[in-house]
């Protein structure tokens, strides 16, 4: 249905078995992605954001202990899909993926044009020629000269390879592309020009994006909304205007204060302490230990609370009438 969000995730859990116990990498995550929207999932290393990307596309390692919750695409529940059906109907056609460091995972002995066209041949059974013609179009879209179709990955710079990987995710015209740290290994200028491309693609094709990153400044380059993740859970989901100007969750506030800025005299401040272990998360609020505003209630786990339109926060402060 057209009213349904493009992607709707509810109570998603992904737990791994590890030597240290059960790792609660994604622990009850809920959010929506709307049509032609860029949602940024922001979080520091070890918060479970990459696991979330894998869970959304069901590219899971073997040591999964729990994988449940609900993932609806266009209103239709996909958790019940068998692997083969999920592969054929969802992965790559409805939802594309740019994995972390994917630009270094290109096959070194296959020409990049062929690698970019491969999803069309595997998922849609297109002929080689038809797929190559489409690959040429997508190269234009991401800003790589068509001459590069015949090159091998080692002949391309890092920025070019990242564009190629993006082309691969876009080739089957998915409604949604999930990108895990797409620019964090790149130089400032390359990063800016790839972000420019993404903005253009979003504007011209109406593609939705989930951008997963730890970099606050980069996230503001494309975000319509920001979902902040901490220790396996979402702690704040706000529209970009709110999030960057007036973050609500104490962790969001501390994170924003820790970002060094070019045009600001105040010195950035670090967040004392460390995030809890995902193998043994605390029973109450997971940020409580580091939180300057904690109080008695924080020993209990808070729920995600809708504070106003387009803003929900997982913090007890908001149950008691706003920011204390």
């Amino acid at each position, binding site marked *: 249905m057209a009213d349904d969000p493009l992607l709707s995730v509810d109570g998603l859990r992904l737990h791994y078995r590890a030597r240290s116990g059960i790792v609660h990498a994604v622990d009850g995550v809920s959010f929506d992605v709307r049509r032609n929207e860029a949602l940024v999932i922001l979080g520091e290393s070890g918060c479970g954001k990459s696991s979330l990307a894998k869970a959304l596309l069901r590219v899971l390692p073997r040591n999964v202990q729990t994988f449940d919750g609900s993932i609806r695409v266009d209103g239709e529940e996909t958790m019940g899909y068998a692997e083969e059906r999920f592969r054929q109907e969802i992965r790559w056609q409805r939802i594309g993926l740019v994995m972390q460091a994917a630009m270094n995972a290109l096959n070194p002995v296959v020409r990049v044009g062929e690698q970019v066209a491969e999803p069309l041949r595997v998922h849609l059974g297109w002929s080689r020629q038809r797929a190559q013609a489409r690959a040429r179009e997508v190269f234009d879209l991401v800003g790589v000269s068509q001459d590069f179709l015949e090159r091998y990955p080692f002949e391309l710079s890092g920025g070019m390879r990242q564009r190629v990987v993006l082309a691969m995710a876009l080739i089957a015209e998915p409604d949604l592309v999930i990108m895990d740290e797409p620019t964090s290994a790149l130089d400032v200028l390359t990063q800016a020009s790839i972000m420019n491309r993404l903005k253009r693609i979003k504007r011209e094709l109406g593609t939705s994006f989930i951008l997963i990153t730890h970099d606050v400044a980069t996230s503001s380059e494309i975000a319509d909304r920001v979902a902040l993740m901490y220790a396996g859970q979402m702690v704040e989901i706000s529209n970009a205007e709110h999030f960057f100007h007036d973050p609500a969750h104490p962790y969001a506030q501390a994170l924003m204060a820790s*970002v060094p800025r070019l045009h600001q005299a105040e010195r950035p401040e670090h967040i004392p302490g460390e995030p809890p272990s995902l193998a043994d998360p605390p029973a109450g609020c997971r940020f409580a230990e580091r939180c300057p505003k904690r109080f008695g209630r924080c020993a209990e786990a808070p729920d995600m609370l809708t504070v106003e339109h387009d803003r929900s926060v997982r913090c007890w402060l908001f149950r008691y009438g706003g920011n204390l």
Partner: protein
Amino acid sequence: MSTQQPLLSVEDLHTWFELRHWGFLRVGSVRAVDGVTFALDHGESVAFVGESGCGKSSLARTLLGLHRPTSGRVVCEGRSLGDLGRAELKAYRGRVGYVQQDPYGALPPFMDIGRILAEPLKVHGVRDRAERERRIEAALAEVRLTPAKTYTSKFPHMLSGGQLQRVVIARALVLEPSLLVADEPVSMLDASVRVEILELLRRIRAQRNLTLAFITHDLSTVRHFADRIFVMYAGRIVEQAPVDELLEHPQHPYTQALLTALADPDPDNAQRERPVPGGEAPSLLHPPTGCRFHPRCPHAMAGTCDVEDPPRFEPRPGHHSACWLHR
């Protein structure tokens, strides 16, 4: 102590790496550092900023005496590194500390922290065990890993990234250097830990009055943690100035491009595209003639920029920029 003389001065330094095919056919030289001149004063904190492949790490390693310059000199307190004998070079290395980029890779996994920190002391002839322990404890206290006992018996995999980077810093400090070279000390760490490590470096620099050469690709972190900035492009220093001066009045077109490409977090960013110069940084094997930025420069003047190397101009007092626009 004489403050007239700089701690370290670098004169027309070139560090080239010979490139061979199949191990013997010469193909040319990668000009990682190609004509760099500057001086560092006692107690000063400077940042070398540039993108990957601009030669900033090669420069750092040349300063540390790990690469031999192809030509030019690194002069420390009046003596050129090239003239030092083996023993003197070893003594020099004891006086420059090195903080590596990747704390996860910089520490040997099979040694505990106590041994890791004792190693440089042993190498530099501190024989007395109690003396070593005293200095290790002091270094750990300085990087705020206290009580020292709980850390010396730990192995690197038992510590977080931020703690590991503190150990790396402690190792660099244990010989009481007068210069600390930090190569991207925070690029592998999370935002919230970065600031903590940078603050630590700043405090240590102030307390010990040591010189800090800080290498980074991230202009936004330098503002609060350095006094002067050198901007590098393709093996050269293209602009240098005190931090605020450089950030407020960038003169070189490359610095200007970097600053417009960098975002402070702002929801309006999503609504606009940033002007980015086309192309990519040149190969250091065959750098362009004339100004190395001219193929990407929006202000390039044909007949000048592509022919002749720009000298260093001083468009504003204390602010140097190598660009023909200032002529």
